Each structure stands twice: as structure tokens, then as C-alpha cells.
């Protein structure tokens, strides 16, 4: 496809820019400050936490106010970049969307002379994507329904006799294929590359027991709270909040799917230097702790742990005991297979 060729060209151009960038920056004085920095992320709790934690640090450092927009959308990012009309200075671009954006050359490289990643573990360092936090898709259930035997694994989720009740799963193939394979006995370490056929076969089993395939974080919480369903896959932060409001919900970390929330700079962003500065603020350990305390979604700066509320440890996906029974969702694998699996999923959903 000619399209792909063009993207590759775009990629080369930005690669050249990477090499040239530090020299250019050094040669110049600090560029003029914009009147505000536009940061795009998921709305709701996420947006608020970004503003509270990182926006504040950034504004303190630079004096530039931050304005949040939402939602993050790969299609929109591409449209902006390709039309040369980039409105976002920084955007969240999580999971496989981030990988696709990198592959398509939609992002500016991270300037490590500004964004200090030296303390980060090697697997968390990427030339384009800054991992700002980690969240997990977990198994959640009504603790007032399952009082004696509690569902723990995805095999339990699939076991409708031992754990009867209506269920819900996410409305896309992501996570669901992994959960199905885990339920079918695949080991955490052997998940990828996914055996797609086997996963769909296993999904066939659970399908009649699914009330709804949820579309958003708000929806799965709503359905659990309303007892529309008693078991669901769910985002750990959302359940944490619901429990805080007194709803009888519990989660199991067993077989939970770890996700990286990525932030990045759209290619051609108008205030590149300040965008880099914002990413730098996002690596600040104290800011990361503020964020983690709000959303139980910690960052990857090891020093952040010092500032996170110690009582939250059991609820963080990155706590070693939780991490041990979880798997990192493989963004790269997903980004490469998305089109085909999405199509198959939609066909499967229609039955």
C-alpha cells in the first residue's frame, strides 16, 4: 500500500529530526513560552489526576498554565499530524494505540536531555512513549454474592457452575483473548504470541453467560453496582473508587492484565520544548505518587514508591505480590494484529 510507504518516509524524516534535535536545541535559547499548554488525555478521573499531579508541577516550574482536553483518539491524532494542524502539545496514547502511533510516525521522539529516564527500568524506556502509569484489568465481583468461595482466577470466571451469576467482559478482543487462554490453562509466561483460535473457542463457552460487553469504565462499575452482573473484568482504579464509596466489590489480581498508560508528543506539536518539559514533569516521583494515590495507578519511577501512601500497596498493580500473578499486555503484538483480530471479534460478536 502506498500509504505505508508514505508513513515510512514520515518515520525517516522524524528519525532524522531525532538526530538533529539536540544540536538545534543547544544552539538556541529557550523558546518563547506559549500562553498555555494543551494536554489531551482520557476524561473524567484520569484527566483530573493528570492536572492535579503533573499539571501543577509543570506550571510551578514554568509558569505556563495547563489546559486538559479529552478523549484520546488515535484517529484524531493521525488527522492532526497529517494535516499539519496539531492542537495537542502532549497526549495520552495508551496500549497498542501508542505502538501504532510510533509505527506510523505520528510522534516526536522524547528528548532525554530534558526528560531524565535514567532511573527507569530498561523495559520501561522507549524513544517515543513515556510510560506514566500502570493500570490493570482485573477480575472483579460482588463480595456480597460470593461470600464463601470467592472467584480467583479466569478459570473460576469461566466456571459458571461453581460461581453462578451473570457476567460482563470488555467490548473488544484486547484482554479477553488473554483471559480466555488463561482460563483454558495457558501459563502466564506462555501467553504471547496468542493462540487466537484457541482463545475464541474458549470465549464461545462463556458467551451465553455474558449480559453485556462493556464499553467504558463507567459502565462496568455501574453494572456491578446495580447487580446487573456479579462478575466482570474491570479496571483496578475504578473498582478501588467504588469500594471507597462503600460498594461491596472485591477484585482478584490473579491473571490480571497490566497496561502502560503512555503519554507522548504529537509530531509537529507547536511548542516542542515545553511539551518535552511537560513529559519531564511527568517523571517527577512526587507527582507520580500524587497520581498513584488518586487512581491507584502508579508510575514507573522507582523513587515514586517512597511517596506513595503505604496503605495503598495491596491495591497497586505494581506491588510485587500483585505483579507476580499478572502479565504485561503485549502492546506490540496487539498493534501488529489489531486489524485482523478486531474484524474477527466483530464477526464473532454478531454470532
Amino acid at each position, binding site marked *: *500500500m*502506498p*500509504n505505508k510507504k508514505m508513513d515510512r518516509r514520515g518515520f525517516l524524516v522524524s528519525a532524522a529530526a531525532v538526530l538533529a534535535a539536540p544540536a538545534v536545541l543547544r544552539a538556541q535559547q529557550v523558546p518563547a513560552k506559549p500562553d498555555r499548554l494543551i494536554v489531551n488525555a482520557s476524561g473524567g478521573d484520569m484527566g483530573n489526576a493528570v492536572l492535579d499531579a503533573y499539571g501543577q508541577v509543570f506550571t510551578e516550574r514554568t509558569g505556563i498554565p495547563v489546559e486538559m482536553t479529552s478523549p484520546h*483518539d*488515535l*484517529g*484524531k491524532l*493521525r488527522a492532526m499530524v497529517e494535516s499539519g494542524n496539531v492542537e495537542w502539545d502532549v497526549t495520552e496514547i495508551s496500549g497498542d*494505540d501508542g505502538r*501504532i502511533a510510533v509505527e*506510523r510516525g505520528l510522534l516526536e521522539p522524547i528528548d532525554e536531555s530534558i526528560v531524565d529516564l535514567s532511573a527507569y527500568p530498561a523495559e520501561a524506556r522507549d524513544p517515543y512513549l513515556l510510560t506514566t502509569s500502570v493500570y490493570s484489568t482485573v477480575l472483579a465481583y460482588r463480595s456480597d454474592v460470593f461470600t464463601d468461595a470467592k472467584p480467583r482466577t479466569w478459570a473460576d470466571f469461566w466456571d459458571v457452575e461453581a460461581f453462578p451469576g*451473570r457476567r460482563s467482559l470488555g*467490548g473488544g478482543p484486547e484482554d479477553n483473548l488473554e483471559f480466555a487462554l488463561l482460563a483454558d490453562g495457558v501459563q502466564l509466561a506462555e501467553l504471547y504470541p496468542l493462540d487466537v483460535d484457541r482463545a475464541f473457542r474458549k470465549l464461545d463457552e462463556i458467551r451465553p453467560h455474558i*449480559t*453485556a*460487553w*462493556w*464499553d*467504558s469504565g*463507567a*459502565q462496568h462499575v*455501574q*453494572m456491578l453496582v*446495580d*447487580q*446487573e452482573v456479579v462478575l466482570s473484568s474491570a479496571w483496578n482504579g475504578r473498582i478501588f473508587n467504588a469500594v471507597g464509596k462503600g460498594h461491596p466489590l472485591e477484585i482478584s489480581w490473579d491473571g490480571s492484565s497490566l497496561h502502560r498508560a503512555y503519554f507522548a508528543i504529537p509530531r509537529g506539536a507547536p511548542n516542542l520544548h515545553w511539551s518535552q518539559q511537560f513529559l519531564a514533569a511527568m517523571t517527577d516521583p512526587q507527582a507520580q505518587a500524587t497520581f498513584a494515590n488518586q487512581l491507584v495507578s502508579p508510575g514507573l519511577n522507582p523513587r515514586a514508591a517512597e511517596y506513595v501512601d503505604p496503605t495503598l500497596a495491596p491495591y497497586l498493580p505494581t506491588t510485587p505480590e500483585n505483579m507476580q500473578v499478572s502479565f504485561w499486555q503485549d502492546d506490540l503484538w496487539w498493534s501488529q494484529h*489489531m*486489524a485482523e483480530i*478486531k*474484524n474477527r471479534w*466483530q*464477526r464473532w*460478536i*454478531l454470532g
Partner: protein
Amino acid sequence: MTSTAFTSAAAERPFGRMMASATPGRSLLLLLPAFLVLGVILFMPLLDLAALSIDGGSFGPYVKALGDPLYVRVIGQTFQIALISTGICLILAYPLAYFMATTSPRLRILCLLLVALPFWTSVLVRTYAWMVLLGRNGIINRLLIDNGFIAEPLPLIYNKAGVILGTVYYLLPFMVLPIFAAMMRVDRQLLLAAEGLGASAVRRFFSIFLPLTLGGIGAGAALVFILALSAFITPALLGGGRVIMITNLIYTQVSQVLDWPFAAALSVLILVATIVAYSCIGLLTRRRWN
């Protein structure tokens, strides 16, 4: 007959001449500004879209869309839901509009406000309200169970019925208002005349009132149908992820898979289908008489 009548008929001004006095050139000129604006903000992007869909110089995306049973099924399902929603909207809206058109002015204003109420809340809020209302433990099911009408909760949402219900609720005003307007325009004297000429209430309705309000039905049906075709949030939430509409597929292609030529091809297909549907509605409800 006397010759007086004949000459007077001839003396009357022929209809054709009256129409010819407004020259076609002048009236076309009046359309120019609209053409310019529409041309720029509507047709250019549409052309762009069409161009994008054959970006690869081939009709590959179209072959893919029409060759894959998934897309054919989704297009079918989309039309089915839009059609059923339009039908239900019509059945609900017509009597409602009739009531509004014939009631006292005060009650009419109240009804208008109530009808327009959905416009005042966001789709998302409305959809969540439906979830609360229609869920297994929702208000309706609890009322029915508590009063012993049913033993098991009814599956009111997370299926096609839920999507149709949400769509109907959301789009009802678009059906009511044009029909209401058409009814207000019906000359009451025509109904009296029909009655005097021997028409029973039923025949007055079917021979006079219904045909005279057909234009409103057409406008309402076209609006509702087209808006239902492009519904997005309602099917995703109230359909329980099971009901996929064409817009959901387009969204996947635009924002998750980034196959824009394919998304453009799907959009062009739905656009063509919409134009065909619109023309059909237009033909069925056309006012031939003026």
C-alpha cells in the same frame, strides 16, 4: 350553459403564464450563496472522502466491504434497526402530534416542552438513565416483579430491543415536531367540508387528514431514519456490545485500525444507502399537488 361562462373562463389568466413570470435565471441566482456555502463545507469533504476511499487507485476497500459477510450483516442490521426505530417513532409520534395539534394552546406548549426535553440532556446521561430504568434490577423490572406480574426480570436492555428503545426515545422529537407542524397547517375547514360531503370520521382521517400530513411524516421519517443510521453511543451502551452498527465499524477503522480508505469506503456506502432511502421516503410522501 350560457356563453358567458365560457368567455369568462378564457379571460382568466392561464396558470402557466403566472409561473413563467418568475424567470428561472433569477431564482437560481438566489440559490447561489447556499450553493457556495454547501459546496465548501459539505461537498468538498464528501469528495475528499470519496477520493480517499479509492486512494489506492482501486476499488479494493469496496470489494472488501461488500465481500466480507461481517460488513454486509452490519449494514443490514443497521438498516433494520433504523427502520424499526423509524416505524416505532412514527406510531408513537403521530397520535402525540395529533393530540398536541388539537389540544388547548397551554397544554400544547407544555407538550412541546416535554417532547423537546431529551434535547436538554446529553446522550450519555440519557443512556445511563435508561440503564438504571431498564436493568435487571431497574425500576421497571422491580415494579413488575414486586407486583407479581413476572417472576424473572425481563431482558429490556443489552440487546437489540434496548438499542431500539434508546434510539426511539432519543429521536422521537425529530418525528413529532415535523408531523405536528404539518398538522397545524391542515385547514380545519377541509375536514368540515369532507364531513359535509358524507365522510365518516375514519374516512376523513384516511382520505384527508393523513394525506395532508404525509409531508410531515416524510420529513420526520427521513430525519429519524438518517439519525438512527448514524447512532453511535446508544447502540454501544444499550446494545451491551452485541449490537454493532455501521458507525461502530467506521469508528474502529478510523480510530483503532487506522485503515482510512476502508473507513471512507464504508462511509460512502452508508451515504449512498442513505440517499437511496431518502429518495424512497421522498417518493412515497411527495406532495404532487403543488
